[in-house]
């Protein structure tokens, strides 16, 4: 703050650091705990071991859940990316009436309380006999993550110069060719980022999966169920893995964006 006293600035810094600790301490604590050798949760751990990692990777239930989560996230994120990407493109390139409503509807799953989506899907899927089915899970996850794709790609498409497409058309390229040879390569970094977000979103989803998953166990669902019953140190391992996974995914997104900002092949001089 301009001209504020050293005293005022120190107080602000103290509160700021306390707030930052409040946010990050939980994450900072979980990681060392996962290497503890004790069977009760204490921090800091007195002795280090890989005991809980062995327990985790040796447990077929966790490994099955890991596989289910990965397959579900992979399929649903591809569906979300495909449909979301097309929709984002359509939204930016059409001027038909009701487009605003369509976009509002696409983004609604992001803002509607997840618990209500979960209840609605439970009742709806039960009605059509898809409750506890893998298809139901894929549909649900695709709907939950498509909004992010619509949003991230929408921004990218808006920045994308329409005249490039027009040049392609005017040179006789078909719509499909334009899409494949011009639009997709330019949007590739954004497509990759939104796919990562959709994958992460699906991999982390708990509430809807718990409601409609039936016998399908995903990693977060199993973790949630365990946490409601007892605190098992194996959970620290999965928490550490999930955190690491998030950091890596975010780093990947950052790396893609960093390359993107340096490399703008189609930047047309105004």
């Amino acid at each position, binding site marked *: 703050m301009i001209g504020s*006293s050293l005293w005022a600035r120190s107080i602000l810094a103290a509160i700021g650091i306390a707030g930052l600790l409040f946010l990050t301490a939980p994450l900072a604590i979980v990681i060392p705990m996962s290497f503890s050798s004790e069977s009760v949760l204490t921090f800091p751990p007195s002795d280090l071991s890989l005991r809980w990692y062995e327990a985790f990777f040796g447990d077929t239930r966790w490994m099955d859940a890991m596989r289910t989560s990965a397959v579900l996230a992979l399929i649903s994120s591809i569906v979300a990316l495909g449909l979301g990407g097309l929709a984002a493109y359509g939204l930016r390139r059409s001027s038909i009436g009701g487009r605003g409503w369509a976009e509002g509807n696409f983004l609604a799953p992001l803002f509607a309380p997840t618990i209500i989506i979960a209840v609605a899907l439970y009742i709806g899927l039960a009605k059509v006999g898809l409750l506890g089915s893998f298809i139901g899970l894929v549909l649900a996850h695709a709907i939950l993550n498509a909004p992010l794709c619509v949003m991230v790609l929408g921004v990218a498409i808006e920045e994308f110069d329409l005249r490039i497409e027009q040049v392609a058309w005017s040179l006789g390229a078909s719509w499909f060719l334009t899409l494949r040879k011009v639009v997709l390569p330019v949007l590739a970094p954004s497509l990759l980022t939104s796919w990562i977000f959709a994958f992460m979103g699906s991999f982390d989803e708990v509430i809807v999966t718990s409601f409609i998953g039936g016998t399908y166990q995903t990693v977060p669902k199993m973790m949630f169920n365990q946490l409601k019953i007892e605190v098992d140190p194996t959970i620290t391992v999965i928490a550490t893995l999930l955190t690491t996974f998030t950091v890596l995914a975010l780093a990947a997104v950052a790396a893609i964006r960093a390359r993107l900002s340096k490399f703008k092949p189609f930047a047309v001089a105004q």
Partner: protein
Amino acid sequence: MLADSQSDTLNESYANISRSSAHEMAPPPHKNEGELATSRSCGSGFITSGFGFLIPLLVLIVVAFDAPIGYMLSLAFWDNTKGFTFQSYESLLEAPIYLRVLANTLGISVIVTFANVAIGYPLAHWMRSLSGRAKIIVIALVVLPFWVSVLVRTYAWIVILGNDGLVNRTLQWLGLTHTPVQFLYNAIGVTIGMTAVLLPLLVLPLYAAMVRIDDRLLRAAASLGAPPRMIFWKIYFPLTMPTLAACALLVFMFCLGFYITPAILGGGRVSMIANVLDMLINQFPNWAQASAISTILLVVMLLIFAAYRRVDQKVSAK
């Protein structure tokens, strides 16, 4: 380098999330509307109009999102024996448990929202005053928890707040208490956990708004002799107020539907609306009652969201 671009990107993508809500209903601005018209004449009708691209997602959303929600909402008004009825709503008003849960949810949500503002505002303000590497690191540290699974973040609080946890051991070491303070499995734990989970949601947009404030404005006030306190309260704070209000509304809205943190840190003893919905669906199937509660929750959220959009639009209009 990595941290730099990462924080920028994430901030950006986060800002997109909050910003997009502002123009989500309004058609996006088209800079080259005229050229678009020419381009459309190149292709043929339907698909070129772009609408064709919307259809796949539209079908999915209508079938697997709108229809279930509509069906759920209608259930509350329908009884197989009696037909159309308001009974589900009447029994909500009559049963004291539902009113107690509602009061509980509102109470915790208000406290969490205030705690978020109390911690988040100084934190964002402090972030603005940083520079160089420190700034990048702090932004990254605020963004990271936002993306880490809520389960992980909630779980960590069990470790911190437990009877033998960090906080209790510190309190005992300081001699402030001799028996462990019960932080978990009650409203205190739920409040702490929810505040921590929702904090980035408030801090990031608030920080973005604070960064947009022109330093020259503050310097001008200082050069005219305004003391720092006056600059803060007369210029800085009013400029951040609309964003603060919008973020607080958003946090409050998310609180109302919060499920995971109360379920874990409340240990089944703290009932919020979402946890009651879980019970009504999974334990004693009472779909009509669950639908009635969902309808009310959805309407309340839509109202809050409408208020949020109003405030947010004012912010982005500036």
